[in-house]
């Protein structure tokens, strides 16, 4: 991840520069990540996004290397969620470009990106299994039985192997969110976007969701981009934390470094406010 912005306040100390970091080697991953050396999996080039008169993103440059687990932090309104929504094509940039593996983000590239939402957004009229098989069958053209088998495996992985025939409304928020994670994984995404995925959950349900995400982070080569207010989540899952404010990157670094010795006053203020 290489955050670059013309803002002088965003100059990064060299030791926190992720540019020098190669994408983590993951010999256990069966699928080649496919990115050529030097091409980040996700690249924002001078992306601007405005809502009315409000500038949400201001000429944002941001790279995410394949296999990274990146957490975006910052005060509300700093544009973190907008970054995820732009990547998911839920909204369009006003200026600049977004590249996936060096190519413009189009409908085909979108299929390699999955997203988990704060409010789960499961399809309430479909049973749990069908929530997970719908896209593999109708987007990837997967055989129905094969999709069902894979979905069962994923639902077992998230601890819901006994809820295949349940309706979303019969599940707790934590269970619904785990179904949503399985649904996103069923599309075999290269990038998984997590938008405040534990914010809508009762505190006692958060751990189950975090466990699942930790397993994904450790056991797969999926690139993760998270937005969260929970610093423990950021510390736990990510290998890079990026602090945003006013639509720009303030600083970035490994979670321990950034949390313990933030370089910028804005980061210090923010961290003390959320702790």
């Amino acid at each position: 991840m290489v955050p670059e912005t013309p803002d002088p306040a965003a100059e990064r100390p060299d030791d926190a520069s992720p540019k020098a970091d190669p994408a983590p080697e993951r010999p256990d991953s069966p699928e080649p990540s496919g990115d050529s050396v030097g091409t980040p999996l996700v690249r924002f080039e001078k992306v601007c996004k405005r809502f009315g008169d409000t500038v949400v993103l201001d000429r944002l440059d941001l790279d995410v290397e394949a296999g990274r687990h990146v957490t975006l932090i910052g005060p509300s309104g700093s544009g973190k969620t907008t970054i995820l929504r732009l990547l998911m094509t839920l909204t369009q940039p006003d200026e600049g470009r977004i590249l996936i593996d060096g190519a413009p983000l189009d409908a085909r590239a979108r299929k390699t990106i999955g997203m988990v939402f704060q409010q789960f957004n499961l399809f309430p009229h479909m049973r749990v299994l069908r929530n997970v098989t719908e896209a593999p069958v109708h987007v990837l053209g997967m055989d129905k039985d094969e999709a069902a088998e894979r979905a069962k495996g994923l639902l077992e992985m998230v601890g819901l192997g006994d809820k295949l025939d349940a309706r979303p409304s019969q599940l707790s928020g934590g269970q619904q969110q785990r179904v949503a994670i399985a649904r996103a994984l069923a599309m075999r995404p290269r990038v998984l976007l997590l938008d405040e995925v534990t914010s809508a959950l009762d505190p006692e349900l958060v751990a189950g969701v975090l466990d699942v995400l930790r397993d994904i982070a450790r056991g797969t080569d999926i690139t993760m981009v998270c937005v969260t207010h929970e610093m423990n989540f950021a510390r736990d899952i990510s290998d890079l934390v990026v602090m945003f404010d006013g639509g720009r990157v303030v600083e970035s670094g490994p979670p321990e470094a950034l949390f313990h010795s933030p370089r910028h006053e804005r980061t210090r203020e923010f961290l003390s406010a959320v702790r």
Partner: protein
Amino acid sequence: MRTWDWSYTGHVMPDLLRGLLVTVEATALGSLLAFALGLVWALAFRAPTRWVRWPVRAVVEFVRNTPLLVQLFFLFYVLPSAGLTFSPLATGVFGLGLHYSTYTAEVYRAGIDGVPPGQWEAATALSLPRRRVWIAVILPQAIRRVVPALGNYVIAMFKDTPMLAAITVLDMLKQAEEAGAESFRYTEPITVVGLLFVLIAYPTSLLMRALERRLGT
């Protein structure tokens, strides 16, 4: 004032029940047409190009804001002069269906607008094709929440079917009128027609209210 004649009532009953059958038939077919056409309008309201949106909107507003009876007369007396001739019942069903489709279109529109944005976003995040988004995600949720409203329009349409008598359809009212014209006794047939309407419409509306409660929670 003459008293109620039960034997005359029994005498006209078969004709009235035959008329009831026509009334129910017209309502059922008219409803199906209204459900289907209304959905077409509602989807056309959201077409990406205004060359579809505007003409459809104009037609729907025109039909909604002219009386059903005028439309029935137009279909029945004017279309044949253009070479299009249908049976009175077919004309009536088409008139009812077309007229009520302009109401059901608004019902569908509200139902579609009522589907939370998160559902569209989830469908986009899964890259579901547009067709599939409508068929599998949006419409099942939209229609589910408008079933009671659609049901209420069926009842309203049922009560509008006597207008078909004006274009010679032998519905309940027309049967009652003919019976009366024959015997000069209108009290029994017209009263029975009213009762039959209540007997069907009231339980149906209770059913719709119950459905509304069930789907609403």
